[in-house]
């Protein structure tokens, strides 16, 4: 799988406030290509808010300062679709009106030949252990299969960084370990700087990278 290359994700002095009360002290962070940095903390500490700032989906009620740079690009002011940051949520969010293969093809960039598109989708299906099942309705897949398709759909769009918003919390325990390996290995292979938000310390352990704990806010 061809990733976006080897970019570094840098957060410099990032601070987010709600009604002029900072959620956490200014944050400096460098995520190297292929590295997974875990952000932990109790609910309400602002870890998901931090992710939405990185993605460019911060709700207007928040005020934020500090820079987010990706491979020398300043992401400030860029809309979500031009940041080249892939996002994975708790839910796979496969598009129900498209088949599994069409969901994967949705991620592919435009301008590829028909043959090339089919080849990449077939490779991704193989990778997701779904070879030959591209015509399926996503609703017919198991939770693990859906999560794998969601990751591969994101990787096919050739992002330069990956952001994971508690992607394992809806999976049952046995599946969780396998999904961790699957996602982290792909992130490493593609050389993607990866930011993981979780409240499960086992996730952090499996990620193997630096762990940052945001304190509970006063409001919590």
């Amino acid at each position, binding site marked *: 799988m061809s990733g976006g290359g080897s970019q570094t994700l840098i957060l410099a002095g990032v601070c987010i406030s709600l009604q002029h009360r900072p959620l956490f002290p200014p944050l400096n962070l460098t995520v190297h290509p292929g590295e997974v940095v875990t952000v932990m903390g109790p609910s309400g500490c602002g870890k998901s808010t931090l992710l939405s700032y990185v993605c460019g989906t911060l709700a*207007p009620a928040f005020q934020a300062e500090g820079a987010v740079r990706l491979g020398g690009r300043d992401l400030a002011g860029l809309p979500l679709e031009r940041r080249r940051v892939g996002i994975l949520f708790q839910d796979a969010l496969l*598009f129900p009106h498209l088949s599994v293969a069409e969901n994967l093809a949705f991620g592919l960039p435009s301008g590829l030949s028909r043959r090339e598109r089919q080849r990449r989708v077939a490779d991704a299906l193989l990778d997701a252990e779904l070879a030959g099942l591209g015509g399926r309705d996503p609703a017919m897949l198991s939770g693990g299969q859906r999560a794998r398709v969601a990751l591969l759909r994101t990787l096919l769009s050739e992002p330069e960084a990956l952001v994971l918003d508690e992607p394992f919390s809806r999976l049952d325990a046995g599946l969780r370990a396998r999904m961790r390996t699957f996602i982290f290995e792909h992130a490493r292979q593609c050389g993607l700087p990866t930011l993981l938000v979780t409240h499960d310390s086992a996730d952090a352990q499996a990620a193997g990278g630096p762990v940052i704990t945001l304190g509970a806010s006063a409001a919590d």
Partner: protein
Amino acid sequence: MLLALTPALTLFLLLTPIAAGLTGTLLPAFGWLPVVGATRFSLEPWRILLVEPGLWRSLTLTLWTGFATTALALLLALALLATCQHTRWLERIRRALAPLLATPHAALALGLAFLIAPSGWLARWLSPWATGWDRPPDFAAFGPQDPWGVSLILALILKETPYLLFMSLAGLGQLPAGALLTVARSLGYGPVTAFLKVVLPQLYPLIRLPVFAALAFALTVVDVALIIGPSTPPTLAVQALRWFNHPDLHWRLPAAAAAILLTLLTVCSLAGWEGVVRLLARFSRPWLTHGGRGGAGHGFRRLALGAGGLALALASLSVLALFLWSFARRWSFPLVWPEQLTLENWSGQTHQLLEVGWNTFAIGAAATLLALLLSIDCLEHETRRRLTVSGRSLWLLYLPLLVPQVGFLFGVQVLLAWSGLDGGWPALVWTHLLFVLPYVFLSLADPWRAFDRRYEHTALALGASPIRTFWRIKLPMLRGPVAVAAAVGFAVSVAQYLPTLFAGAGRYATISTEAVTLASGANRRIIGVYAVAQAALPLLGFGLALWVARRRER
């Protein structure tokens, strides 16, 4: 309890008038109408209808205005959603919707006529400096001189766009639209393209019935077409009504044939629309996944907001024009403002206004109350039995909105006259109920189903009886949605024209029937009075509903 019988009773109340009414229209269409001495089945009514010189023109006009209106209104509604979905504009649009939805379409059409007529407000602004007119020009921008019904289309768009927007917003509420858009955008898709490729294919099935209702309405509307539509020839619905009201009662036979023709035309149009939508869906399928990302869509958004803003401005100015005329004493062309204001237009009508106002209020209140009772009973029954309304019963609920009013109200009138029930209150309230009930049910259904049943369970566990739990816990907690549903139902009833005309046998006048009747005259002051009154009643209802919804529990 009676609860178990309510769904059946509700369906009976909705479906029998439609079935009986269609039969009552079919019989005269084939020559059987004993009242006028026609007791032999024949194709004569159809022969008269088909040799009518204006018929084909009427047919094409009906199809053109119906499809153009619905396509443009849907396009505008979806364009606004696609371009504003992720912005703060969405909230502003949502807030602008309520007053537009509450304004009856007849009042809006009258106001629009005041605005765009050759002697209307727009012309006054531009005269004489730009147009050179110091007297009203001798042509009509609508009516006979507007053979393509452009003003009719415009008037209908002003009403249908808010309706389709409202229903689409309700549909979006059932989808994880925000999350799906975020995913698509994180994959690099521009917001508009993301909406079209990811949200729209899932949204359309949820708004299919409202779109059908809008198309059926545009094809068969009578009051708006009477006010602002072409007249030589008029649309098919108006033509049918003209023949029905012909002094020579034998014209009722071709009138019935025309009503049946319009019903068939509507069925075919709905099927045709659905066919085109399916073709579009099939041919756009490769486009969904070929990878094109689209741009930021700023230009597209400006275009959509511009068109939406224009529609809003036209609607607001229309209402304002009505208001000004209702208080104008002298207002000669080309002055922009009235020379003198007066209360006489209103005070001169007090007696008449009070009478038709009371009729309007009483019919609306009775139909709304009945609709509330039936809807709440049905929904309670549904919750207790853990049933949900399936797609098919939703169709039944929409049926009164899809079958042309002209098509079955003719027959209802024939049957009422035959049974001697015409012109009575029960018949009036029942026909209004047909149109009020679907809207009341639809606006109650979502909040009712979303109600957290644990509150009820807690109350029951504390020893309260089911009835007490309903009256003291559930109903007070849901009083907001109930109040809004009541306001919606009342607004629908106030706007009805044809049901009052047919079921009331001309014996009862409401504000709507008065306003439409006056529209053919030339007294803009009196038209203004009735149109403002027609618009004010539903607004009062919504104001009251908001007050009830916001009032804190004692």
